[in-house]
């Protein structure tokens, strides 16, 4: 059981790191919370000498959680000023006026 919990927490910790790096927003909570649960259970199932690994995973998951919350709170969703798109819109409008003149 302890081994299963440790393997699961490692797998979810890796997924958490990937999800935290990618711009997945709130979805990153899923693997982070699962890592927290599995590593906490593994920590509780371990005797004093075996607690080092689950403790490390637990610390990683807490740090991940802080990063995910920080990204959601501090980084505002923005649309980049796409000059190419703006130019395309301008050209399209000129073409539209030509079409409308013919109606």
């Amino acid at each position, binding site marked *: 059981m302890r081994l299963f919990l440790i393997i699961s927490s490692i797998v979810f910790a890796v997924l958490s790191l990937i999800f935290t790096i*990618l*711009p997945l927003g709130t979805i990153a909570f899923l693997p982070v919370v699962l890592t927290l649960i599995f590593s906490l259970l593994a920590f509780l199932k371990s005797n004093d000498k075996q607690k080092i690994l689950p403790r490390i995973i637990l610390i990683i998951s807490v740090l991940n959680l802080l990063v995910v919350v920080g990204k959601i709170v501090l*980084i505002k969703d923005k*649309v980049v000023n796409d000059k190419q798109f703006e130019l395309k819109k301008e050209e*399209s409008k000129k073409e*539209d006026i030509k*079409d*409308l003149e013919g109606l």
Partner: protein
Amino acid sequence: MFMKKIFLILLVLQINLVAFSQIKPSEKLVYAASYNMSGLMTQLAQVTMQTETVKTTKKSFLHLSWEAATFSKWDSFFKIRDLYESYVDPASLRPSLYKRSIYEGGYTKTEKYIFSADGKTVSSTMRKKNRPEVKKSFSIGSSTLDIISLIYKIRTLDFTKIKPGQIISYVLVFDEKEYPVSIKFMRNETVSAGNLGKKECSVFSIAAKTDRLKGKDKNLIWFTSDSKKVPVLVRFSIPVGTGQLALSNASGI
């Protein structure tokens, strides 16, 4: 007799103004588009709905546009730059020109529909990525609308006269086909409306005979119940999932 004529002219003008007053030519509505991923709503893009007056030598048009752009953090993964435009008659909202230009993760498609003066024929030009341009002409009903003018047309309805469960029918032209579309008034509900604060809204369900929309009464639009009839929330259910558009900023209304 003279007064009667004046009264009639004023009445006609008033009716036209009522239809037009809800859509001002400098309106800008900004939405945050979210997609449901594993049960969590994730903000993906910004959708902007804008109106402006465009004049030609003969006529004046109301230019309605929708623009969708992914937030910068998503651009390197799946960039979206979609532009939907419609040039309509300011009073009747009947479309004269409809354009769709999509860029979704490298895939491109452009469409242009020119509506004939009687509104019964459409000359279309379509181009997909790596495919030749296709020109076509097809017949439509005289009251057929494009997808953009349809939303604005709904806003000209008198919501106070519509009862819950009442269905209003329209015909929509999309992807060179006509689709019957029905909107059903569901209920009144107070929701958050971005910078407008909490607003009482009229909720409508949109149904169309197409595979693009899924579920019964799962495609909903919340319009403010006041005279502006601003669409503040859209919830949609499509074959690949569910999502929503929530108003974040409204100006020029």
